[in-house]
Each structure stands twice: as C-alpha cells, then as structure tokens.
C-alpha cells in the first residue's frame, strides 16, 4: 500500500506537469493543445541527444526546457496566430495535425535503433532504503515531485503577484479591453505558449527515464494529463496538480490488482473522470460556473 501510494504520487506529478502545460494554454487562448505531447516527446529526445554528445544531465535538462520555451513561442506566432480569429475548433484541429506531423518528423530523426530510456546519472532511480526496507521512492522520484511542485508555485506567483502575470490574465480574459489599456496581447499569448511548452518539456524529461523513448511515447501520458486537467477544472494550476495526483494514485492503486489485468488502470481513470464530471462538471478547482444549454 505504501509503495503504491509513493508510485502514485510520482506518476501523478508527471501527469500534473502535463496537465499544467494544457491548463496554461487553455487559460491563455481557450485551446486544448494536443501537440503538447509531441513537443514534450521532442524535448525528451533532445535531452537524450545532448547526453549522447557527452554533456551532463543538467546541460541536457536545460537544453530540453530551452527548446520547449522557444518552440512554444514559435508555434503560437507561426501557426496559431493566423487562425486566432477563426472558431476555436480550427486551432484545436491544427494542434492535432501538428501532433501527427511532429511525431512523423521525430520518427525520421530518432526512429531507428533499439528503444532507450533517458539516463539520469545525477540521480539514482533505485528505491530509497528506509528503516531497512526498500520503498518505491527513488532520489529521482523526489526530484520529479520537487520539480513539479516548484513549477506550480512559480506559476502561481507569476500569475498572482507579478505585472506580467496580470497582463497575461487580462489578455486571456478580455483581449480587446487589454489592448485598449496598452497590453501587447500578441506578445502575452506567445509568452503563454512558451511557458506552457516549457512545462510540457519538463514533463517529457521527467517521464523519459521511466519509459522507452519513441515518437509516440508521450501519447498515453498526454491522455492522462488531459484527464487530470479536466478533473482539476482546466483553468486552475492548483487543480491541474491536484487532478494529476488523484489520477496517479488511482492508476497506481488499481494497477496493484495485477490479477485483474492492466486494462483496469484505464478504467480507473475513466471512472474517476466520470464521477468528477457528474458531481462537479466545472472541475474541482475551477472558479467558472458550468454552462447549461
């Protein structure tokens, strides 16, 4: 039970960071960015390539996050901005297309060879020994949990306590009014995508030591991350983290009943999603009232 809980918290932290990436873009542009998984995957491969080139884990870590930051801004500016005035579904479908495109290109670059995971020389992935017992919590897991919590805190401080955050919120809620008040709305949207993509890259790098890297290795984490974001309310960074942790725990507990087969895990996710949507359709942490048609 303890080990399942610890496992759940670690994988929950990763779902949480994917959920954070989705929430950031949803808050800024009311778009669900399905390409987030693909961008996180590329970030993980970049980290792997940097390590292969002989650099340390930290250099690879920073390179992957830096790539995420720049790629997010470029994608917003080049692909999303032109369809901004179109119905939101246009942009959502665009991100879907982008996901497929990114995965194909990644397949051409990194597709060959035997499947690998991202090495983590700096942190051991062996469980800690507590009181003579090995528990399912490694130094790397602690790093994952710490990094995701720190990201959440930094995002909250950015949005709640800085002028840039105030501008970003205004640009997201009332772009026209924000413009009249002198806010450079376009720049704020690019910044929002850059930050979201950075958080997505973080998710990719954090999950990469545990999964075999392939062009579609982020697909399943993306689906779980999306479920976590919806459970949390799509609008709230705190909700994204809470949703991610809840999902991590549920999958871990349900996955513990190996006798019943691995498909039970996915069912657990869906049951949690349905229960939350029935009890609180707006999600657990959203301040927004649900719309009824």
């Amino acid at each position, binding site marked *: 039970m303890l080990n399942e809980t610890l496992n759940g918290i670690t994988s929950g932290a990763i779902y949480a960071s994917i959920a954070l990436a989705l929430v950031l873009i949803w808050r800024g542009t009311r778009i669900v960015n399905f390409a987030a998984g693909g961008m996180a995957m590329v970030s993980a491969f970049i980290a792997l390539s940097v390590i292969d080139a002989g650099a340390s884990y930290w250099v690879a870590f920073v390179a992957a996050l830096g790539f995420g930051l720049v790629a997010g801004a470029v994608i917003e500016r080049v692909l999303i901005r032109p369809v901004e005035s179109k119905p939101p579904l246009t942009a959502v479908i665009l991100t879907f297309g982008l996901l497929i495109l990114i995965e194909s290109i990644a397949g051409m670059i990194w597709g060959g060879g035997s499947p690998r995971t991202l090495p983590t020389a700096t942190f051991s992935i062996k469980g800690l020994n507590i009181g003579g017992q090995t528990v399912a919590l490694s130094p790397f897991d602690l790093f994952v949990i710490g990094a995701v919590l720190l990201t959440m805190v930094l995002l909250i401080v950015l949005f709640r306590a800085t*002028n840039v955050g*105030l*501008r970003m*919120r*205004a640009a997201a*809620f*009332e772009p*026209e*009014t*924000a*413009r*009249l*008040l*002198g*806010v*450079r*709305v376009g720049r704020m949207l690019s910044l929002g995508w850059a930050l979201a993509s950075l958080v997505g890259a973080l998710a990719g790098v954090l999950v990469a030591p545990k999964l075999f890297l392939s062009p579609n290795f982020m697909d399943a984490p993306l689906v779980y991350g999306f479920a976590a974001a919806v459970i949390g309310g799509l609008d709230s960074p705190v909700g994204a983290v809470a949703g991610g942790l809840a999902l991590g725990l549920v999958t871990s507990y349900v996955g513990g009943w190996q006798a019943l087969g691995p498909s039970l895990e996915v069912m657990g996710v869906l049951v949690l999603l349905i229960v939350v949507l029935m009890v609180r359709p707006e999600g657990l942490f959203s*301040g927004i009232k649900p719309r009824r048609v």
Partner: protein
Amino acid sequence: MLTVEGLTTSYGAIEALRAVSFTVPDGSITAVLGANGAGKTTLLRSMTGLVKPRAGTVRYDGTDLLKLPVEDVVRHGVAHVPEGRSVVKELTIDENLRLGGLFRPDRADRRRALGEVYELFPQLTQRRRAAAFTLSGGESQMLAIGRALMSRPRVLLLDEPSLGLAPLVVGQIMRLLRDLTRSEQLTVLLVEQNARTALSIADQAVVLYLGQVVLADDARRVADDADLMHHYLGF
C-alpha cells in the same frame, strides 16, 4: 485638439460611417448623439482602431491614431472606455485599476494615480480585493472610468456610460466628468443615446444620423432645438 476627418467604416456592404468629420477642442466635452444604429459606437471603435476604417484620419497631437496599433493609442494619451462597462470580471478591482496604468514606466506615479482614483471613487476602496463581477452597474462604470484615468489620459473616449444606470448614479458620473474636464484639462468625447444627460454637461454636440454628421454645434443650441431633438434623437 482631436480632429476626425473623413472617417468611413463599412461592415461588409453596409456603410456604418460615411465621411465623418468633426473636431474636439482641448479641455472641453463633446457629446456624440444619435439614435440606436446611428454609428456612435462604430465611431469610437474606428477612432481607436478596434474596427479598421476604410478611409479617414484621426489626428491628436500631430499623430494619426489610425496609423498606430490599438495597444499604442493609450500611449498617445487617448483612453477609450468601451460600451458595457468593460471591466475584466475575473480580476479584482485593484488589479483592474493597476492594469490601466501598467504601460507607464514611472512606478511611483502609478502608485500615486491609484491613490487618486481611490480618492475619487471611495466606494471602490472598500472592496479593492473583491472580484470585479461582484460590483453593481454603477460601480462597474466607475471602475471602468477609474481604470482609464490610471493611464493619465489627455483625451477620454466614453461609450454610453449612462447605459442601464439609475438616474442618481448617472448624475454622479456626469458631474465627475465635468469636474475632471475643468481640473485636469481633460478632453472628453462622450457618446450617448441619452441626449439630455449628455447635453447637460457638454460644450459641443455632434449629431449622427445613419452614419453621417447632420449637425455639429454648441451644446446649448442643440438642446434648445426642439425640432432637431424630435427628428434625430426621438425626444
């Protein structure tokens, strides 16, 4: 002096503004009057670039506002308060106000301006941490005007500030505009469907009818012209 010249705006085949020209002298209030659909809101939205006009210029202080991106209009001293009390409902009152001055680099003066606005609207002070959607209609309008004042504007463009407000509140807002024009040398362009209210404080009036200027004159003379009031403004 704010000078609008030959401003023409169309929505598809429909011409909403046809060669609109008028001037607003510094330190005075000019009312833009007209019935529903006369083009009053389109006029303001065209002036700040929220709608792109087909032709015309809007000059203030040697700059054609239409050549600027919307974000830069307020940087040239022209603040636009759109129709419908455009407060950002999700933000607090304090955040709404701070947002209005954020583009100005002088941090100390931003803080001073915030104090001045709270002094002007004591109702807002007590609720500075409350979300803006909790405000009444009148308070929201005051917040929208206060937020525009945070930019230390020289020109204020107001779109129907009296819409849906109780007469007592309307009177309060109009008096405030009158006082600001006098004390701060503010230039005001006041779009109103409520002609009597607007004329009570305006120096000049511009009457729009189907997108055209049919009259630009002294406010008192427009108020006294019973035929005109009846024909164009429905009084």
